[in-house]
């Protein structure tokens, strides 16, 4: 790890329209990933971890916030500008220069939308970020052979030389622990673990720098999970990959990740190095999550205290006071300024 930042997400918002309401799937999430690092993202289902991943890889157009990859802005939304414009329209104390004020806001909003569109045209997809999906059966087309599936990305990006394609496919098949003669078979002929290997092969054939693994092992048997995790770890070392590892199984995440971010109801509520997060969890939800991990140890398990976390209700005004704040070097928690001081004091005592 050389500390160079490869992916940066700032204030990412992904809202979905549901009738008149907005569903805030991802609400103001920021993080950055260093080169060669494995960042784990955990949280319950519906907390927005998969949506975050899909926005980063441009499967959605973000509602707000910005994403940088390798120092380049790859996608941007216009939510903040839009809100500023709405506010300008309804603001009571806008004074004499009201018209200018509004038109300025409108201009800003328009610019932001333009930028968002341009970026979408400029980078319709980012081949250097690849994704591995959760369910290997659902994500492989049953009517395509393994070779067609793996080579599809190459073909889309203009590779026409059949020999090069074949050589590359065989090469990645070997890398993920499959045989070249598997290339002409169909997905149903493979077991769950092998299918996930095919998913990985499809991702790495594009020579990506970042891999987003969205619950790559949750659909697999325990004995196979370890194989896939070890394979991902090995590929990271060989190819210098950076991995965004999304999962709900905390013991796997702890084992595999350098840093972990915990998401809850669309927010990033806590983020720290894995060791730090597990030894000093601060946010109530993280504590509840850690206390719920099943341990393969009856003695410890029977003496364990489970912590329950009730989601507190806040008004939108109160909600605004919350932000991700650094409590301890490298350890961020979503809290208010008031809480921050107390939490810091407590953390230092430990």
């Amino acid at each position, binding site marked *: 790890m050389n500390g160079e930042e490869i992916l940066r997400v700032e204030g990412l918002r992904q809202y979905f329209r549901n009738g008149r309401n907005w569903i805030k799937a991802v609400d103001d999430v920021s993080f950055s990933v260093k080169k060669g690092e494995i960042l784990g993202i955990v949280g319950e289902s519906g907390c927005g971890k998969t949506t975050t991943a899909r926005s980063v890889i441009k499967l959605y157009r973000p509602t707000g916030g910005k994403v940088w990859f390798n120092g380049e802005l790859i996608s941007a939304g216009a939510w903040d500008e839009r809100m500023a414009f709405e506010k300008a329209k309804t603001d009571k104390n806008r004074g004499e220069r009201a018209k200018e004020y509004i038109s300025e806001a409108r201009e800003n909003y328009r610019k932001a939308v333009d930028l968002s569109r341009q970026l979408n045209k400029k980078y319709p997809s980012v081949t250097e970020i690849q994704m591995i999906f959760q369910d290997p059966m659902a994500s492989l087309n049953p009517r395509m052979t393994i070779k067609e599936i793996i080579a599809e990305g190459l073909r889309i990006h203009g590779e026409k030389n059949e020999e090069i394609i074949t050589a590359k496919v065989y090469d990645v098949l070997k890398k993920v622990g499959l045989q070249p003669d598997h290339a002409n078979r169909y997905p149903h002929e493979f077991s769950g673990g092998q299918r996930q290997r095919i998913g990985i092969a499809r991702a790495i054939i594009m020579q990506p720098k970042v891999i987003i693994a969205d619950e790559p092992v949750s659909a697999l048997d325990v004995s196979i999970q370890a194989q896939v995790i*070890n394979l991902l770890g090995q590929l990271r070392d060989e190819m210098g990959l950076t991995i965004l590892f999304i999962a709900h199984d905390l013991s*796997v995440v702890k*084992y595999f990740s350098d840093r972990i971010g915990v998401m809850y109801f669309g927010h990033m509520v806590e983020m720290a190095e894995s060791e730090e997060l597990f030894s000093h969890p601060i946010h109530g939800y993280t504590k509840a999550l850690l206390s*719920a*991990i099943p341990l*393969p140890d009856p*003695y*410890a398990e029977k003496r364990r205290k*489970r912590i329950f976390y009730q989601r507190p209700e806040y008004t939108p005004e109160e909600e605004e006071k919350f932000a991700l704040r650094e409590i301890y070097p490298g350890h961020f928690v979503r809290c208010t300024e008031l809480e921050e001081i107390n939490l810091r004091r407590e953390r230092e005592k430990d």
Partner: protein
Amino acid sequence: MENKKILEVSNLTISFKTNDGLVHAVRDVSFDLMKGETLAIVGESGSGKSVTSRSLMGLLTPNAVVEGGTIMYEGTDLLKLREDQFHKYRGNKIGMVFQDPLSCLNPILKIGKQLTESMLLNEKISKADAKARALKLLAGVGIPDPERCYGQYSFELSGGMRQRVVIAIALSANPEILICDEPTTALDVTIQAQILELINEIKRERDLSVIFITHDMGVVANMADRIAVMYAGKIVEYGTSEEIFYSPAHPYTWALLASIPDLDTHEKLESIPGTPPNMLFPPKGDAFAARNKYAIALDFEEQPPLFEITPTHYAATWLLHPKAPKVQPPDIVLERARRWQESEKAENAEKSGGEESR
């Protein structure tokens, strides 16, 4: 726990007819269930654990062939019952909780209707009484507003709530035995912990015997009194939960335990190479031999019998034969056992220390 057997499965063998031939799903499985205990059956997909549990409920698919064995419950062999006779047992004596709570609830019927359906069908009670009982059941499984839930559809509930409803339905006829087939696999960790807690509570309250089927060793630790580990249609090891976790004897159990990362594991995970055997052609010797790094030549030739280690602990591996080479289980397993002994010692010392000071 009284040591009374309430269910006795012996030499159960089940195969499935397919176009390619017979798939040997369950091969010569025997176990007993004691009154008030939780027996966990652990194994990966395709190991035959679900087929075993379904045969207890008489829910095998039409292409299943029971090749032998008996399931004795209250003096009757469940396998020999006709479908109309089975009604007396299914649901009433043996209840079942399925894996995916969404697919086993009817989406176009209200929860209340699904709960009272069997009561109204099997017992002579009025609708009002049935509703009262249903509400009580819903409250009993920890649903905060039973009245409201009664009139809702399954899609209006969250995953955890749905699973609670399924448990309520399974309990509606007061069964003696509850079979839970991977009840938490589709749920989040925090919800999973709540559901496991609920099952433990209900078991205590109603003095149920539970058969708990899962592939996750971690889930089992808090639940099981005894554990049976299944692989390729056979029980390869069974014993009390302490014996399985702290002194496992079968290489497959070792591998299972070693492949789950503990919270303080750092070394490379010990994965099990290869995949489970194709049960169309079950291997001649020990089914796990091909993936087993400790396998000896005999493992490929002949199936090992169940060796007795202690009166409660059995394992089917040739490694236990007096003439077999001595091998050590993987470090992670030994480490866990060592930690357990230490903490137990510490607790005992604390206890005796506390008594002395008094």
